């Protein structure tokens, strides 16, 4: 049985196209994915992301416990801070990637991928010492994201003054409910993510739409994160793709112990094996997940995500490739090929953070 978020009826009213995602019936688009994408790049868009899982971890030893599961160092956090991390197996493969909110020194709010929520919860619970409480709070929380350069203008219309530094959160009272609002997102734009009880979040979502913030579906959420070069679990990260391979070094802290540290450390040290690269197609064609990638005529890897990037107006791909060290260290600008329906199309290696690195085509 598929689940629905508290905003399901609102989506129907807004004539959204509904698809299955992570066990939920979610809006993939309201009108046009490209229009929604451009609204976020130029103005503001609002997303229902209530399908995301919320896990509460509480206890005197909660920080040390979680730090042993995460690649990033959450003991460096203060109350009101948000941190991105990967949770890894001993193999170095990713259980999930997630956002950690430090509510208190002994209480953490984890926001995880919908499709991984049950797995994450069981995994964390199975590792937890008896004095650390792990609770699946997903049913209690709805979540929306307001993203785009004008996000704050609209947020202040509905909520009053909003002052939050990047990767921080604050509590807000709205409609008799207490909300958590963080200055975070998954689009490459400035913006906020808002967590709260279902009724308040539904009212707020409707308020934003009334104020003419464009409702955006999961289709635009994917093209936006892809164009910004942000990883998606199941594509750039998985049980079989480590955060080192995915190029997420800034979020791995080797000066502490955590599951998978040895494997990841060895991957960094040896500086060999698969790495994620950005590709820009020189010829027209849409690369998709799983398509083969060639270098000097040899198959060297595969596309993890690919699409037409609507703002940059170019066909781009993230690809996991295995190349000799000397080439890997100096891969920018080199010529690759992506095989699309039996045809090999030329592609040029570019930095993965497409949105910052590439100029939009007119």
């Amino acid at each position: 049985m598929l689940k629905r978020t508290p905003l399901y009826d609102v989506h129907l009213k807004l004539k959204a196209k509904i698809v299955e995602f992570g066990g939920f019936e979610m809006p993939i688009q309201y009108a046009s994915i490209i229009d929604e994408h451009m609204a976020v790049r130029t103005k503001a868009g609002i997303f229902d992301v209530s399908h995301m899982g919320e896990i509460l971890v509480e206890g005197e030893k909660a920080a040390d416990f979680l730090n042993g599961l995460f690649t990033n160092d959450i003991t460096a956090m203060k109350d009101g801070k948000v941190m991105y991390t990967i949770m890894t197996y001993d193999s170095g493969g990713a259980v999930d990637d997630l956002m950690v909110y430090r509510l208190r020194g002994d209480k953490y709010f984890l926001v995880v991928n919908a499709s991984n929520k049950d797995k994450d919860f069981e995994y964390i619970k199975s590792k937890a010492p008896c004095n650390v409480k792990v609770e699946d709070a997903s049913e209690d929380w709805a979540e929306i994201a307001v993203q785009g350069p004008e996000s704050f203008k609209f947020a202040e219309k509905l909520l009053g003054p909003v002052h939050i530094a990047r990767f921080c959160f604050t509590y807000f009272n709205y409609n008799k409910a207490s909300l958590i609002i963080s200055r975070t997102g998954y689009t490459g734009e400035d913006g906020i993510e808002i967590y709260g009880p279902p009724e308040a979040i539904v009212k707020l979502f409707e308020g934003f739409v009334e104020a003419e913030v464009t409702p955006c579906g999961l289709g635009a959420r994917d093209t936006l994160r892809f164009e910004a070069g942000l990883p998606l679990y199941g594509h750039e990260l998985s049980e079989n793709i480590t955060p080192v391979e995915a190029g997420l070094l800034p979020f791995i802290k080797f000066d502490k112990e955590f599951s998978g540290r040895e494997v990841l450390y060895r991957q960094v040290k040896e500086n060999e094996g698969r790495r994620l690269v950005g590709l820009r197609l020189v010829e027209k064609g849409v690369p998709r997940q799983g398509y083969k990638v060639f270098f000097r005529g040899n198959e060297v890897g595969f596309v993890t995500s690919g699409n037409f990037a609507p703002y940059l107006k170019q066909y781009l791909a993230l690809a996991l490739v295995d190349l000799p060290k000397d080439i890997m260290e100096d891969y920018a600008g080199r010529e690759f090929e992506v095989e699309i329906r039996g045809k090999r199309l030329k592609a040029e290696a570019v930095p993965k953070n497409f949105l910052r690195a590439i100029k939009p085509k007119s």
Partner: protein
Amino acid sequence: MSKVPKNLLYTEEHEWILVEDGKGTIGITDHAQEALGDVVYVDLPAVGDKIVKGETFGTVESVKAASDIYAPVSGTVVEVNEALKENPELINKSPYEDAWMIVVELDDENELEELLSPEDYKNILEGE
């Protein structure tokens, strides 16, 4: 409800064909473009290529997915809409006019009898 012009014939795979003087102009229907969403790439055959009824002759890609286009008839391609290569979004804007894809010289006009009338195609859409 998607548009289904009365002067065209249709396939169950959502292609349309307009037949005039032994030549057929082919495209995809309003329903097809709506289901695909924003089209970002089109792969079409070249002038002189043969297409075979029921087999794929090209691909339309939207931001969501790639989708094959099937030939409603067999024939030889005599014209290709080059504008679609630069402006694939025409398929969303004008599926029956500006976004015609190819013109073919029909091998066998009898094949047309197996295609769907506008009424039949409409019934299929309503059943979906």
